[in-house]
C-alpha cells in the first residue's frame, strides 16, 4: 500500500511553505520518527518527521520549491499493507500556536490572506508628507519599536515566557537577546501573576519594563496586578508613585485554539481608569504606538493580534516614528457611512468598504487605535460628516467597545444621526473549536457590509 506524504500545516495560519531540503532520497528506508525534510514557514524552519514506516518510493516536490500548498502530496512511501497510515497524527496538545490537526487551507474567519485594498489609503496626518515608505510586517514593526527604545533608554527591558532564547512564542522578540543580552531580555517561568507583579514593581522602582504575555488569555492570571497595582497606584499615592510599565502580547481569537485561548480583552481593560489601552492594526501604528507606550509615564496595555503579525504594510522610514496616544485615524475616506473599528476588525472593515464601493456606498473607515483614552472627537467628526455609523469589533457584543461608541454617538452625536448605530460583533458564545462553528462565530466583511446596507436603508 502506498502512503502519500502531504505537505503538513505547521501552524494554524500556514497555507503554504517552502520545501527547503529533503533529508531522505528515493529508495531510503524510513521509520517512525525519522526526519524526512525541512520545511520553512513564515515563522520557522521545521523538521518534517515520518509517522510511517517503509521505503521512500517517489519524491514529487523537489527541494527548494517555494509556495507548496498545505496538503499537496510531496512524496510517496511504499509500505506493508495495514501497518502504516497516511494521515499525519495530531500532536497531543495544541498550544498556543499549534494546530492540532492539519486543516485544508481555508481562509477562516478573521484569518486568511490579506486582500489588496482597492482604494488608496489616506496618509496618516502624523507622518510628514513625502516620507519614504517601506513594506514591513507587524511582527517586525513591533520588534523594531522595542529594539529602538531599548537602544535609546537603558531602563527599558523585556520579560516574559519564551521571549529570549526561544526568540518569542510568536517571534515578536526575535533577535533581541542577541543584541541586548540576558540582563535586558529575560525568560520567565510560566507564572503570569508573579512576573506581572515583578514588572509593575520594577516600574515603581524606576525601570521601564515591557512585560510580554504569551497571549492576553494568560494575563487573566495576572489581571490583579495590571489593574490593582499598575493602574491605580499613581492615583492612590497622590501622584507620587508611577508605574510606567507596558503589558503587551497577542489578544483576541487566533485560529482553532478554542474558547480559553480566544478572547478580546479590549473592553475589559478599556473599562479601567488609570490605564492606557492601545490596539493597533497596521505596522506603522504598531511601531509608532508601541514606542509611545514605552515612553509613557503611565501603565499601558498594548493589545496585538496573532493573525495580523505576518501581514505587511507601509511603514514610514523615519529615524524616530512615534505616534500620539489617544488619536484615531481615518483609514479610508467616505461620505455615506462611518465604520468604526480597531485591531483586526479594521482589515475586515476595509474589506467591507471595498465591497460596498462596488455598490455605490462610500464608507469611511475609522481605526480607533487607542481604546483608552478613546478619541471621541474623531468618532463624532466622522459621524457629523456621514450621519451613519456601524461599529465592527472582533469580540462579544455586550459591554463592548462597540457599546461605548454607540453611547458616544447617542450622547453627543444624536442630532447628526440619520439611522440607529449598529454593531457587528462576534456571536455571544464562547468561541467554538470546530472550523465551521468558529467561522460562524466571528465577524467578517460580509456581515459588516450587511449592517452598512441596513443603516443606509439599502
Amino acid at each position: 500500500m502506498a502512503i502519500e506524504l502531504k505537505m503538513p500545516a505547521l501552524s494554524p495560519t500556514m497555507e503554504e511553505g517552502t520545501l527547503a531540503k529533503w533529508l531522505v532520497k528515493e529508495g531510503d528506508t524510513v521509520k517512525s520518527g525519522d526526519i524526512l525534510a525541512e520545511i520553512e514557514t513564515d515563522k520557522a524552519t521545521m523538521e518534517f518527521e515520518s509517522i510511517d514506516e517503509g521505503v521512500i518510493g517517489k519524491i514529487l516536490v523537489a527541494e527548494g520549491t517555494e509556495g507548496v500548498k498545505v496538503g499537496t502530496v510531496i512524496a510517496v512511501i511504499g509500505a506493508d499493507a495495514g501497518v502504516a497510515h497516511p494521515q499525519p497524527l495530531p500532536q497531543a496538545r495544541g498550544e498556543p500556536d499549534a494546530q492540532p490537526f492539519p486543516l485544508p487551507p481555508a481562509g477562516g474567519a478573521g484569518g486568511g490572506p490579506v486582500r489588496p485594498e482597492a482604494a488608496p489609503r489616506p496618509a496618516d496626518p502624523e507622518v510628514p508628507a513625502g516620507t519614504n515608505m517601506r513594506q514591513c510586517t507587524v511582527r517586525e514593526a513591533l520588534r523594531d519599536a522595542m529594539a529602538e527604545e531599548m537602544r535609546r533608554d537603558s531602563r527599558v527591558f523585556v520579560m516574559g515566557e519564551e521571549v529570549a532564547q526561544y526568540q518569542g512564542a510568536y517571534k515578536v522578540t526575535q533577535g533581541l537577546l542577541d543584541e541586548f543580552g540576558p540582563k535586558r531580555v529575560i525568560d520567565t517561568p510560566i507564572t503570569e501573576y508573579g512576573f506581572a507583579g515583578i514588572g509593575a514593581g520594577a516600574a515603581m522602582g524606576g525601570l521601564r519594563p515591557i512585560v510580554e504575555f504569551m497571549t492576553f488569555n494568560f494575563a487573566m492570571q495576572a489581571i490583579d496586578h495590571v489593574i490593582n497595582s499598575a493602574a491605580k497606584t499613581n492615583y492612590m499615592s497622590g501622584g507620587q508613585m508611577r508605574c510606567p510599565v507596558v503589558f503587551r502580547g497577542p489578544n483576541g481569537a487566533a485560529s482553532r485554539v478554542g474558547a480559553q485561548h480566544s478572547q478580546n480583552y479590549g473592553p475589559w481593560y478599556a473599562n479601567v481608569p488609570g490605564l492606557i489601552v492601545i490596539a493597533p492594526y497596521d505596522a506603522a501604528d504598531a511601531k509608532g504606538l508601541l514606542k509611545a507606550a514605552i515612553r509613557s509615564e503611565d501603565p499601558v496595555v498594548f493589545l496585538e493580534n496573532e493573525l495580523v503579525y505576518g501581514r505587511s504594510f507601509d511603514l514610514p522610514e523615519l529615524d524616530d516614528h512615534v505616534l500620539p496616544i489617544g488619536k484615531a485615524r481615518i483609514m479610508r475616506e467616505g461620505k455615506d457611512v462611518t465604520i468604526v473599528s480597531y485591531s483586526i476588525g479594521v482589515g475586515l472593515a476595509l474589506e467591507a468598504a471595498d465591497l460596498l464601493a462596488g455598490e455605490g456606498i462610500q464608507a469611511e473607515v475609522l481605526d480607533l487605535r487607542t481604546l483608552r483614552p478613546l478619541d471621541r472627537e474623531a468618532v463624532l467628526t466622522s459621524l457629523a460628516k456621514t450621519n451613519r455609523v456601524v461599529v465592527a469589533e472582533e469580540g462579544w457584543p455586550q459591554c463592548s467597545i462597540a457599546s461605548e461608541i454607540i453611547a458616544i454617538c447617542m450622547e453627543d452625536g444624536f442630532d447628526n444621526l440619520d439611522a440607529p448605530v449598529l454593531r457587528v460583533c462576534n456571536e455571544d458564545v464562547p468561541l467554538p473549536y470546530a472550523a465551521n462553528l468558529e467561522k460562524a462565530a466571528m465577524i467578517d466583511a460580509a456581515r459588516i457590509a450587511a449592517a452598512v446596507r441596513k443603516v443606509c436603508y439599502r
Partner: protein
Amino acid sequence: MLAYGIDPKVIMAELTGRGAGISRGKGGSMHMFSTEHKFYGGHGIVGAQVPLGAGLAFAHQYTGDGGLCMAYFGDGAANQGQVYEAFNMAALWNLPIIFVVENNGYAMGTAVQRGSAETHFHRRGTAFRIPGISVNGMDVLEVRSAAEVAVAHVRSGKGPVLMELITYRYRGHSMSDPAKYRSREEVQEMRDKHDPIDAAKAELLKRGMAEDRLKELEKQIRSKVNEAADFAENSPEPEMSELYTDVLVESY
C-alpha cells in the same frame, strides 16, 4: 484519556472538530472532558487544573464517596502560584488528592533548570508537609507500584501525596515548534535507550510473552488508531445550531 477507557474515536473526532467529538467539536484539543469516565479535563490555562483537582478532591471528601483525585500537571505548570495555594489547602484539609508532576524536562522551549529554582519537583510539597516521591516515568511497572503506594496513603486518610514522574517529550511542544533548544542526539538517546514502550516490550518478552503476540498487539493498536482517524475524517462538522447550545444550562 485512553487510560480512563475513553474511546479513541471520539477523541480523534474532537481533535478534528467534528460533531461526534467528545465535546461535540466545541472544545478542541485542549478542552476534552468525560464526566462519564470521571475525566475532568483538559484545561488550556497552565496550572489551573491543580486547584480544580483539589476541588474535585474536596467534593469526594465532602460527600464521603471514597473517591480520590489524580491531578496531572507539567514541570512548567509547577511554577504557577495557584499550585501552591492548592497544596496548602489540600494539606490543611487532608484532601484525597495525588498531585502528579509530569517532569518531561521542558516547558515549551524552557528546559527545567532554566525555569525552576528547585528542579526536584517531588520536594516542592515539603513546605506544606506533603510527602513526595520521585518516579521513573519511563518505567510502566515503577509508575504502577508508586501509584499504588500513593493511593494507599491517600485512602488511609493521611492527605495528599506529590508524585514526580520523570519523563521526556519526543516532539516539539506544538507543530510550529522547531525545537532548536535541544540537540537531536538528546532526543535520539531518549528514544533509543529510555523509551517506555520499548522497555515494556522487552519486559514482556523477558517474562515469556511470544514475539508473535506482541506483533499482533501492535497490529491491533495500529488498526485502532487508523479506525479512529478514519472515523474522525469521515464525521461531519457540528450542526450550525450547536453554536448556541450549552452556553447556559437553564433558560431565562
